[in-house]
């Protein structure tokens, strides 16, 4: 067990982490105890609601609600800094203008070629 190697595509499980068993500091133990206490409290809340025989509605998860709210209400926390403006430019303005320019020049060139009679369109059904 001392020379345990992880499975090729898996991370080391927490229960096999040697730092969980050796050289433990008091702070680490206290931290783990606090986390465990929070987890147990949440589990208790969930199990109480789950096993309630009079429950007809679904169990609302406030963490899920917070996540959905945070993801959809990003605008109030948006600030136009250099980084965000650059991102906005690069991902919305540049592709539109760039693709417009590319397509326009390419198609104009093709149109000029067709008018000049340089294009071989014997079997072309769509172009």
């Amino acid at each position, binding site marked *: 067990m001392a020379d345990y190697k*992880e499975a*090729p*595509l*898996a*991370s080391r*499980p*927490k*229960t096999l982490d040697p730092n969980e068993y050796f050289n433990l500091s008091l702070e680490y133990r206290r*931290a783990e105890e*606090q*986390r465990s206490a*929070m*987890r147990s409290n*949440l*589990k208790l*809340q*969930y199990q109480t609601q789950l096993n309630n025989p009079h429950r007809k509605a679904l*169990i*609302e*998860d*406030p*963490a*899920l*609600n*917070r*996540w959905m*709210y*945070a*993801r959809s*209400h*990003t*605008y*109030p*926390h*948006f*600030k*136009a*800094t250099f*980084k*965000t403006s650059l991102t906005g430019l690069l991902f919305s303005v540049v592709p539109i203008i760039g693709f417009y320019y590319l397509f326009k020049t390419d198609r104009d060139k093709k149109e000029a070629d067709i008018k000049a009679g340089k294009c071989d369109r014997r079997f072309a059904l769509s172009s």
Partner: protein
Amino acid sequence: MAGVGFRRWAQALSRGKGSGLSALLPGCRAASGGSKADLPSSYPLTPEAKAAAAKKYNMRVEDYKPYPNQGEGYGDYPKLPDKSQQERDPWYQWDHPDLRRNWGEPMHWNFDMFTRNRVDTSPSSMSWSSMCKTMFGFIGFMMFMFYVGEQFPSYQPVAPKQYPYNNLYLENGGDPEKAPEEVVNYKI
């Protein structure tokens, strides 16, 4: 009875503030469900705000780390480690086993990306650099070789088809009386 209620409602309406539909609705809500304080808000600036935010998200104050306040729209949402759900213990009794998540646990900002059907951050047998080098090396090599093949084409030699009988003079509608011109398609 109804008349009294209607009169009182009309009085409240004329007295009250607000306009439109919101003036007609009662100005009170039920106490059930989550409150506004439970929802994410803006970046915590003071340590008290940080502690309150950590409590709100069911995290320890030491574990709670908001995203840097660079105006990218995160607010006070915690920055959790970028680990996919596939990396979590498969044998633990999760509340939602398919998502490998417990009820009430703070969700990663990109939780929908880190589900088990999607992005997986499990350790791989090859390092990222060697994977990149292998793939781009192979693609680059094949592109180079195809380019070289375009520059130096190599195929079986071809020529236009040669027909016997003076290029099929009679079959092509030549006059049988007239002598055709001799066509010689070979060279010795």
